[in-house]
């Protein structure tokens, strides 16, 4: 056994201490954490996908292909979507972390100053794949440049029970086309213990995906096109709030005030709600486990599920889908490699593999993906195919910038409706929300 005497130990530990203190001094002087060997590897942070097969594909086959095609070691880290913002904040503040982060909603607009300009990659992608949807552009372009490369859009449609709606007069798989019609049908179904399910809680996906398009469909909006003039306190908004109070009581599950993004999935799959605005995950889950999810008659639930867009209001018919876009972090030491990677992963043959595993849960960021052959597989999924075309995003009619993101993350529009259904006079609820919006847009 090698001898290790006191003198050599002191020498070594003294050297180590000096090296450590010099390193620490360097870190403190530069104000950022050290970056290790980033030249040949890319760290991509994403959410835990609701379709686990897609994560498996990325972490396995795609990572291997990336190494082969680009000579880059791809590290994919998946975390809960609600935790991504905390990671982005700490990464930007410390100047170290993932090279690319897949952001939801319009989060990219919150971090514009800290993101690399990816205009070249995004423009190429848009041109080569039929052009971006309005939602993709709204969340990833700040009006001057692309601050993220659009990745996908999780389409939202109402999943509903075909047989239950037939019982209340909607034969042939039809679904109520207006809010009034849905209220009437929902009233009859709620009386049978089968209400419509919708969250008005503080949850990032399903809450705004309902309250925003609902407001637009009545003709209401947050601001004018200038992004400054708050016009929420309109006759249209007030009408929408008044209608919501009755609609909630008559047709909706009142527990929805506490629902998170998964509550409506559970409620629908367990047969306690007749319809709910959601991604295709409910249907995909019912398809995956036909024996576990069955109707009250003992038949597979999957055969009794259909999809429809949110109903029309006096102001039109709109939708709000959850967009995803890849932010190339400004602190990344591997800008060129990361851009190459974004080009590669968004290219048609590569993206196609990921898109196929999604089975329609996500649509592409561009219109070309509407032509994909997977849409021929299952007619029940067809409503998702072009759903993103009616999509708008938070901040309408102004840009979906940082201030719109602030309104969204503070749940102001959702809370306006939640306050009213909890008993606040609709006029006061609108006044409260307007006050909050003025503080944000007027600042």
């Amino acid at each position, binding site marked *: 056994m090698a001898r290790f005497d006191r003198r050599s130990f002191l020498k070594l530990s003294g050297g180590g201490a000096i090296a450590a203190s010099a390193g620490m001094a360097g870190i403190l002087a530069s104000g950022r954490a050290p970056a290790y060997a980033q030249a040949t590897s890319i760290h991509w942070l994403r959410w835990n996908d609701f379709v686990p097969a897609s994560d498996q594909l990325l972490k396995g086959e795609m990572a291997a292909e990336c190494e082969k095609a680009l000579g880059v070691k791809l590290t994919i880290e998946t975390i809960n979507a609600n935790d991504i*913002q905390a990671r982005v*904040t700490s990464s930007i*503040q410390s100047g170290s972390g993932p090279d690319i982060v897949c952001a939801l909603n319009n989060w990219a607009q919150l971090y514009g100053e800290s993101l690399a300009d990816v205009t070249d990659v995004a423009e190429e992608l848009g041109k080569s794949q039929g052009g971006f949807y309005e939602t993709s552009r709204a969340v990833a372009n700040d009006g001057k440049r692309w601050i993220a490369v659009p990745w996908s859009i999780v389409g939202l449609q109402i999943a509903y029970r075909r047989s239950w709606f037939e019982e209340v007069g909607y034969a042939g798989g039809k679904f109520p086309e207006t809010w009034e019609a849905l209220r009437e049908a929902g009233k009859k179904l709620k009386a049978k213990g089968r209400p419509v399910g919708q969250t008005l809680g503080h949850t990032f996906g399903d809450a705004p995906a309902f309250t925003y398009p609902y407001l637009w469909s009545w003709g209401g909006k947050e601001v004018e096109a200038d992004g400054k003039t708050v016009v929420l306190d309109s006759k249209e908004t007030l009408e929408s709030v008044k209608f919501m109070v009755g609609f909630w009581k008559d047709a909706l599950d009142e527990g929805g005030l506490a629902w998170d993004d998964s509550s409506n999935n*559970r409620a629908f799959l*367990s047969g306690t709600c007749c319809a709910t605005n959601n991604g295709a995950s409910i249907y995909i889950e019912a398809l995956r486990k036909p024996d576990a999810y069955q109707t009250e008659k003992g038949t597979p639930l999957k055969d009794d599920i259909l999809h429809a867009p949110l109903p029309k209001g006096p102001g039109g018919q709109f939708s709000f889908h959850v967009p995803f876009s890849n932010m190339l972090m400004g602190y990344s030491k591997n800008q060129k490699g990361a851009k190459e990677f974004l080009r590669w992963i968004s290219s048609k043959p590569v993206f196609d593999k990921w898109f196929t595993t999604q089975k329609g849960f996500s649509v592409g960021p561009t219109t070309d993906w509407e032509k994909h052959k997977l849409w021929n597989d299952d007619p029940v999924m067809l409503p998702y195919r072009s759903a993103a075309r009616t999509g708008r995003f938070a901040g309408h009619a102004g840009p979906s910038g940082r201030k719109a993101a602030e309104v969204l993350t503070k*749940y102001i529009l959702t809370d306006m409706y939640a306050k009213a259904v909890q008993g606040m006079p609709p006029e006061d609820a609108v006044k409260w929300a307007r006050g909050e919006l003025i503080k944000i847009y007027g600042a």
Partner: protein
Amino acid sequence: MAISYAARERAYVAAPRRGPVTRLLEDERWLGALLLLPTAVLLALFIAYPFVKGVLLSVTDARVGVPGTFVGLQNFIALAHDGIFREAVWNTFIYTGVTTVFKLALGLWLALLLNRHFRGKALTRAFVLLPFIIPTVLSTFAWKWMFDPTFSVINWTLYRLDIIDSRINWLGDPQLAMISIIIVNVWRGVPFYAISLLAGLQTISPELQEAAAIDGARPWQRFWHVTWPLLLPVTMVVVLFSVIQTFADFQLVYVLTGGGPANATHLFATYAYQIGVGTGLLSEGAAISLAMFPALLVVVVVQLLYIRRVEIH
């Protein structure tokens, strides 16, 4: 052999000359300072630095990735006009006040019970600690299921027992949501009170109780005139810790309600997180966090003064 060798060697060594470092360390003031140094460094790194950084952030208009410029007290003035912030302040005081009263009452009761002799005492004491041992996020998720609007086991039980005929909207109704988070906090906090107060009870000599009993004091009189005054210093310290922790509570509300419905359960910490991280407004988030500092400072000072007074008496 070894001993005699060592003794012989010591005999040959001349009395060592004391170097300047040794002489310095023999001075108790220097040695004291040196021994305190690691603690001081730790405190400076993990308490003073974040606190000062928070103060500096709160007087700027910093956002994530943007250092910002000095804006004085603008963030605090904006908070004074922020309705959601006022709601969070009110919620925090209600939440802390109500939970502290219940935790103290139930904790004390439990401690008095556990202080008695009975079969399986050690096992019971270990079980009582369970809510405190389980990670808060995990146990709160279990509570979230129990309060679930559709699948609540509490509702199911009450319904089966014919106590209710429609669902109780635990987390969807503003008042019930506040009551729900209070219930979970009390459930989680009682063991801390019980075990700490039990430790305090065990330091009270049984002879005092016996003497009081011989003098004819009834159980309640014995508690009020003997146990309670002797337990008071421990109780004050326990309440102090608990108030600080409850005031700055985050995980429980974040998991159960996310501050909803319609901000009915937002506390300082959850609102600071929503603004600082969710919206990227670091300076405003820091200002919200700091706004709880004066209230906590008053609580700490009053309680410490009281403890000192009790100790002197």
